[in-house]
């Protein structure tokens, strides 16, 4: 009995340690870039006429920057609830495959499903890339604790950032605002390349970059979905052809 509690407290301590390592992982360049992106977002929300608590609430509840930008756009356009939800849902389809990719890497036989459902709320590009980069150095049983550290820190820090931007009334010069908006795509551009699991990931990335803007014009509203499915499929078949060539040759 006493041995059992000792083992338990030991494992609890390890969970705390890995949780804190996840927290620390956020105080890095990717974390800093995300903060800058949220500074830009807070400026956008304030210009759109949202209040401080509304914007902080949106950041915590939605936690996906592109979806939040789309939601602000829908508010500005005076869209109905249904139209806004539809646009946001379309911009967030990508979250499903991202969660599908990360869930098996965090799951052990003992992981309770509700833990995974709660953690999935933290999935957005930055935390996903950070986790996919770091998981190879994290013991499997500690990955949920580690990801809780990453996710909760990013969400809470950026809710604070959004509130702070609202309180600081001064406006930045437009060049600096542009530079802040530019940080997000630049960070994603470099980190996505580094987080690829296999060569096909690089192929998928190049294809997505190329066809994204094309579908933005050809299929407005469905551009991301189309780019993902078409770019992803081509990259996957390229991967299959390569594997087959390697096994045959």
């Amino acid at each position, binding site marked *: 009995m006493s041995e059992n509690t000792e083992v338990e407290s030991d494992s609890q301590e390890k969970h705390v340690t890995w949780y804190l390592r996840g927290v620390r992982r956020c105080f890095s360049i990717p974390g800093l870039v995300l903060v800058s992106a949220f500074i830009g977002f807070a400026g956008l929300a304030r210009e759109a006429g949202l209040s401080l608590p509304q914007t902080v609430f949106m950041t915590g509840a939605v936690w996906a920057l592109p979806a939040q930008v789309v939601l602000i756009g829908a508010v500005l356009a005076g869209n109905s609830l249904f139209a806004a939800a539809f646009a946001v849902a379309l911009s967030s389809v990508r*979250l499903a495959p991202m969660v599908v990719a990360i869930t098996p890497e965090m799951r052990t036989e003992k992981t309770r499903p509700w833990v995974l459902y709660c953690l999935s*709320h933290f999935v957005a590009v930055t935390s996903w890339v950070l986790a996919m980069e770091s998981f190879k150095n994290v013991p499997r049983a500690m990955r949920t604790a580690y990801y809780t550290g990453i996710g909760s820190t990013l969400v809470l820090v950026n809710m604070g950032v959004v509130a702070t931007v609202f309180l600081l009334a001064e406006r930045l010069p437009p060049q600096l605002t542009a530079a802040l908006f530019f940080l997000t795509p630049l960070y994603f551009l470099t980190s996505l390349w580094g987080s690829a*699991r296999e060569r096909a990931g690089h192929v998928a990335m190049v294809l*997505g970059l190329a066809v994204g803007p094309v579908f933005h014009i050809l299929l407005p509203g469905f551009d991301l979905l189309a780019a993902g499915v078409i770019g992803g499929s081509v990259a996957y078949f390229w991967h299959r052809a390569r594997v087959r060539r390697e096994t045959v040759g």
Partner: protein
Amino acid sequence: MSFDAFDAWWWPYLFILLAGWLATDSWRYLGVYLGGKLSEGSDILVFVRCVATALVAAVIANLIVFPSGALADAPLTLRVGASIAGFAAYLFSRKQILVGIVVAEIILLTGLYLID
């Protein structure tokens, strides 16, 4: 039923909850459900990762090519050129993210101040 449709204090929050939270977390929950059925090494996961990566890449490209806010005032060639230079710097610096970002930002800001 727009964001400003009702005067009640709670309406914007309900709007954000339904159009924002529900519309995003449904996909995440679906992802957990589907991800629970796949094992880590399965070939379908390669496909899913490819789709997820291409989707995120499309988000990136659209943020650069069709930006919103102050970035939209920068010319398209400057945005694309700075991005390509930043990505090249990232590759040549043995994947230092900071190097890539700094190079691209310097080019963008130099360009913006020169245009003024």
